[in-house]
Each structure stands twice: as structure tokens, then as C-alpha cells.
């Protein structure tokens, strides 16, 4: 359950009633693309928080952000220096740094909203949860898709047995290319933790466990060749109402897919589409009708909220009231554990175009140079 148990739990002034009404002093640790594009605008537009620190190793990046957003003297090259200046932080660092930085800050009584995935391994996730518990700090995880109305609506419909007996589910999400982190941490398993299964898939795995409860991995195939996978296909088994339900997840960062979740039940099919955050589509069995379902209290389309703001508000609420955040450390651990399991049993996707011709392409290869050490290749005649 929730990592947070006590409120308010800021390091400096935890029990002051006056403090409770003051903005939460917040820091942003890691100032890459997601920090600038999503978290910084949410923080700057929220009356509930005050931006008290931003931290990044890259001094030029800090200087750019200070100029661009007219920020005061709140820049820190070393994240440790934010302790004492903030009540809470948003950790938007490369994935491999989430655990070490998060544990240190939580241990100092600082509340943490950590970008997804929570960490690279289940063990690291457990360390983070333990650090949060031991200091009664909030550990929230940035699965922003959980704030989409369609996620809650799908959850309600599944739980209310709207589709009758569930038969199967299928996630298909794919787009050529993707998010471009400035540091390039996304290009290596050691810093990202994996490929498309981590980058896009962590949202899918989180939503899947939210909708269907605990799931097992049946099979996983991907196209990694020692690096990170760009494509994967995974089969899962869930148990809903004591009946087995199988589901497939297909993810790609090289080609476009329908970008939807389909849940097939006795009475019809439910579609949750990426571009449709406010509603779900119901296709009754043996009918050509399509029904768009929305929640009753949905605001007008013109008032589409900033979901990162909603996530921040949820985090602040957890800090102030002691309520559990929408996604806490324990919940986020489940998707990391599933990722670990997938990689442990991974087989290779079939890519006949990849190997079929290789032998013929290098027949004329001359021998490798005996002295061909990087940077010491013999210089060709005429090069001055």
C-alpha cells in the first residue's frame, strides 16, 4: 500500500499548521527534455508549490533554463545541495540513477515524485520503498497515464463486469522513433534498463496490472542484439473472477501500430485509444454499432487538463494529507518486476531480412589489421 503514512512530512517543518497552507518547496532533479517539457511548466503554473531548486550536472543546461524561464538563484550542480532548500523533489534523471538518488533524498525526509520506471530492478524498487517507509516520506511515481479519465473509466467498466466474462486483452502501441532524451541515456541498457518495454511499455504494464491485477508472463520475444529492444511481443496470463484471461502486448519503436488497448468480453469489445484520453469505445458483439463512453462529470473538451499538473496536485495532496498518491512505490514495483521477468525469458523475434544475406556481403573482406588499434590506423599516402 501507500508508502506515505504521515502528513505533512517535510524535513524542516513537518508539523506546523502554518506551513500546511504554504506552497510546498519543490526541486527538480535532472533537467532534461521531460523536465523542461512537462514538469517545469506544471510546477511554475501551480499555486500549491514553489520552485525552490533545480539540479543538473550540465551547467550550460542550468544556465539555459535560468534564462529561458527567468529563474532565481536556485541552480545546483550537485543534487545533494538541494537538501535543506526543498520539501519535495521531482526526480527526472536517467533511469539508472533513480534508485541511488531517490534513496538518498528519501532518507533525508524529502518527498519524491519519481519519473517512471521507478528503478531498473525490483531490488532497487524495494530499497526505495523501504527508504520512504523509514522516513514516512511520500514516494509517488510518474505514471501520468493513470490520470487520464479513460484509464479510470476502463477500470470501472472492468470491475463492474460491463463486458460480462472477460476473454482476452491486447495492447498494441507503436510509433517510428520516439522520445529523444538529451543525454542519450535511452541508447543503452545500463542506463535505461531496457528498450521499448521500459520506455513505452512501463505505462502499459502499469495499466495492465491496475486493470487486471497480478499477471504472469507466458512468453516474451524481442529484437535486442545485445543492446535495447526496439520491438517486443509478450503474452501475459491474468486471473479475473477466478477465470484465466490471456493478453498480448505488442510494442514497437520502428513502426506504427494501432495504439490502443482492446479488451474482449462476452458482450463485446472495449477500446482504449492513445489519442482518446477522455473516453473509451464500446463495440457490442454481433453489432456494427460503436458507442463512445465518457464519465458523467467530464469537463468540456476545451478544458482538457494538463495531466502533469494533475499528477503534481496528487503528489502535493499526498504530502499534505497523508493520503496515498495515485501511484505509489509498491504499485510501480510491479511493472518493474514484470519487465525483469520478460527479459529473463526473452527469445529472439524473427527478422528474416536481418541475417539472410550476411554471409554474402562480407566475402571480400581483407584481414583485419594487426596493428589496428583505435586511432592508430596507418595513414594513407597523400594525407597531409
Amino acid at each position, binding site marked *: 500500500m501507500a508508502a506515505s503514512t504521515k502528513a505533512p512530512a517535510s524535513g524542516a517543518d513537518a508539523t506546523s499548521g502554518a506551513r500546511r497552507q504554504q506552497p510546498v518547496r519543490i526541486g527538480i532533479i535532472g533537467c532534461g527534455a521531460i523536465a523542461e517539457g512537462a514538469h517545469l511548466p506544471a510546477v511554475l503554473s501551480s499555486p500549491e508549490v514553489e520552485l525552490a531548486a533545480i539540479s543538473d550536472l550540465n551547467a550550460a543546461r542550468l544556465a539555459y533554463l535560468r534564462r529561458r524561464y527567468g529563474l532565481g538563484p536556485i541552480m545546483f550542480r550537485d543534487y545533494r545541495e538541494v537538501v535543506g532548500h526543498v520539501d519535495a523533489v521531482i526526480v527526472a534523471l536517467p533511469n539508472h540513477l533513480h534508485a541511488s538518488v531517490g534513496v538518498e533524498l528519501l532518507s533525508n525526509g524529502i518527498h519524491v515524485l519519481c519519473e517512471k520506471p521507478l528503478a531498473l530492478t525490483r531490488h532497487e524498487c524495494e530499497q526505495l520503498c523501504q527508504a520512504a517507509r523509514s522516513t514516512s516520506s511520500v514516494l509517488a511515481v510518474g505514471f501520468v497515464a493513470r490520470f487520464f479519465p479513460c484509464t479510470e473509466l476502463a477500470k470501472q467498466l472492468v470491475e463492474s463486469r460491463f463486458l460480462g466474462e472477460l476473454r482476452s486483452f491486447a495492447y498494441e502501441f507503436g510509433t517510428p*522513433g*520516439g*522520445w*529523444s*532524451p*538529451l543525454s*542519450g541515456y*535511452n*541508447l*543503452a*541498457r545500463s542506463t535505461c534498463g531496457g*528498450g521499448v518495454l521500459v520506455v513505452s511499455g512501463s505505462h502499459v504494464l502499469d495499466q495492465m496490472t491496475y486493470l487486471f491485477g497480478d499477471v504472469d508472463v*507466458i512468453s516474451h*520475444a524481442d*529484437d*535486442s*542484439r*545485445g*543492446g*535495447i*529492444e*526496439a520491438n517486443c511481443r509478450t*503474452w501475459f496470463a491474468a486471473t479475473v473472477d477466478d477465470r484465466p484471461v*490471456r493478453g*498480448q502486448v505488442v510494442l514497437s*519503436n*520502428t*513502426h*506504427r*501500430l494501432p495504439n490502443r488497448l482492446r479488451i474482449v468480453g462476452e458482450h463485446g469489445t472495449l477500446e482504449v485509444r492513445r489519442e482518446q484520453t477522455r473516453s473509451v469505445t464500446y463495440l457490442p458483439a454481433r453489432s456494427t454499432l460503436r458507442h463512445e463512453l465518457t464519465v458523467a462529470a467530464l469537463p468540456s473538451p476545451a478544458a482538457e487538463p494538463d495531466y502533469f499538473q494533475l499528477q503534481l496536485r496528487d503528489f502535493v495532496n499526498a504530502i499534505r494529507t497523508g493520503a496515498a498518491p495515485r501511484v505509489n512505490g509498491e504499485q510501480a514495483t510491479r511493472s518493474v518486476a514484470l519487465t525483469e521477468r520478460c527479459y529473463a525469458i526473452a527469445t529472439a*523475434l*524473427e*527478422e*528474416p*531480412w536481418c541475417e539472410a*544475406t*550476411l554471409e*554474402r*556481403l*562480407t*566475402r*571480400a*573482406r*581483407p*584481414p*583485419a*589489421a*594487426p596493428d*589496428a*588499434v*583505435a*586511432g592508430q*590506423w*596507418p*595513414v*594513407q*599516402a*597523400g*594525407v*597531409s
Partner: protein
Amino acid sequence: MNRHSPRRVLVTGATGFIGGRLCEVMALTGAAEPRPFVHSTGAAWRIARFPLDFAIGDLCDGASVARAMKGCDAVVHLARGGDAVMRRGLENVLRATVTHRVSRFVHISSVAVYGSQPPPDTVSEARAARSDLPYGNAKLEQERRVLRYRRRHGLDVVILRPPNVYGPFASFAVGMVNALRSYDIALIDGGRNPCNLVYIDNLVEAILLALWRPEAPGQVFHVTDREPVSWERCITDHAALVGVAVPHVAAAELVPPARERLLRDSLRALADPEFWRRIPIVQRGFQWLPEQARQVVRKRLSDWEVVGRNGSPERRFRADHPFLAGQKRTVAHSSAKARRLLGYTAPVSYDEGMRLTEAWLRVARLLDGDPPRDEREPAA
């Protein structure tokens, strides 16, 4: 003479279709150790499947190019982009190549350097190139810059000119499938002209030979498939995959490019009686013409009625669509020189290339039909 293969090769444009496959082949065969130069990390998914030594930077930033070049033995330059990348980017790479005493520079150009209507003697590389296409001109200017570095610095440069490159991940294949689906393609005059194709892996073979062979420096090579394939065969084969029929049209029926249409549509306004009524002197002059001459003028103007109400052609094929404009090229460029000097074999036939392309198109969900085997549900 270099009898050995370069070990570490900087590949610019590594996140693209050709660069991606080149890095993949190098990594899978050990032919070389690629260092992919990456501008946008979100575009590098295909090559990030391998644990490679990525260099992240901007070709227009000389310092990041110099950093990437450190420790490299050779360069394959595939990057393309806006004017800055084509000029300053290439200049930065060439300069760093000389500074770091890199042994070979392979530049990937294009047969677009011959323009939209290559003369018959461009079958071989001997003819001086001249282009009427912006892309062809940019490539031609790049070739001149590369050759200048050979003259001034003695750099071992090799220039390869591929035609349409097809295969898995190719925009040629994706564009063809999409154009067929939207009925934008027709066979012009039976599609009898040569399509000038090279399968991606054949081009990769040529790039590797350009890196390895001592005969390569200072030379320009066409790189094509072994067998010439007509547009008729190429388009019909793709149409069979999509499951559509391809219409036939005569070249004369194509709608001319926008600039030509602008002039013609402006003249069409003259056919409007309202227009004439507002210019009395013109009307009077027209009335003075003999009836036969007046009929000729009226008929000419009415014949131009090919443009729809909103100014766009209706059910007509655009002459400047790449797959239609390409069909007007009559020359089949030959890679005989590459075969003779480099030992280029183009080991993948057109049929095999199409089979592999089809396999990828199915996985990429660009064709209808059964899902790939990996996607079917495993046994309980």
C-alpha cells in the same frame, strides 16, 4: 596500399535507413566496429538494438564532429538534411577527417546528380553530372567538395551513386505501398522504362568494398542491382502485395507540376465570358477576328478544362509525383565499373530482395493478412 580493413568507422546518418542497416551489418558480421553519429537519440532505436559506441552530436557543430572522429579509421558519410547539414555539416566532417588522419572517406551520393532526365551517356559514370533537381544539385555540390579534399589534402575519398534504394525500412517501399493504397500511382506508357533499383544489402556490400579495396580511392561508382527491372515489374509486384490494380496512363495525360499549372490556370480565366465583357477593347478586337479564328481560340481555352472547381486535379495523376516522374527516366545506370574495380557482386537478386521486403512490410503491419508467427498465441 591498404590491404587491411579499417576497424572503427564513423557512420554519419546512422539513424537513417541506409546507415542503420550498414551499422547492423558491421555489428553482426564484425566487418568493422561502427561508431554511429546520432543527432536525435529518439531516432536511433534500430541501431540501439546493438551495444554500439554512439557519438551524440550535431554535424553543424565542428567540436562534436571532432570528438566523434577521435579514434576512427574511416568515415561513411550518409547524413542528409537542410542546407546547413549538406554544406557545413559535410565540411566539418571532411575537416575532422583530415585533422584526425582518417584513412578513407566514403561519400554516399545519388544518381539524382544527373537530374530528372539523365542523358543516355549516363549509363556509366564518365559523363559530367548536371542536375535540374534541388536534391541533385545539393548532392553534386557535396561531391565537388569531397573531391576538393582529395585534391588539396590527398584524402582517400570514394563516391557512390545509388539509385532508388529498396528493402526493409526503405521509404521507397513504404511510399510505394501507401501511394498504391491511395491510388496515386499509374504505369506511364506501360512502365517500360528502367526503375534503377538497388537492394539495401547490395549497397551495403558496395560501401564495405569502398572501405576495403585499394582501387576505390578517387573513384565515383554507380551502385545498382545486377538485373535491370522495369517500373512495370516493380510497381506491379508491390501492387500484388497491396492487392490493388494499377491503372495505365499515357505521359501526355499527366497533370503538370504546380508552376506550370499556375500559368495555365491563369490563362483559363480568359475563357470566362465575364472576363471578356469587362475589357471592351479586347472584346472588340476579338469580334474583329474571323469566325474560324474565334472558334480556334474558344476551343483551345475550353480544352484546358482539366482542373477541378477547387483548382486541384480530379482523378488525374501528378507528373511531379516521385513514382511518376521517375518513370520518365530512360537510362539504366550501370554498376559495371564497381564490379570491375571493386569486385562488387550485388549478391541479392531482385526476387530475394522483394521477398525480404515483403516479410518486413508484414511485420510492420503495412500489408493486410495474417500476423507474423511471433504474434500468434502460444500453446497453453
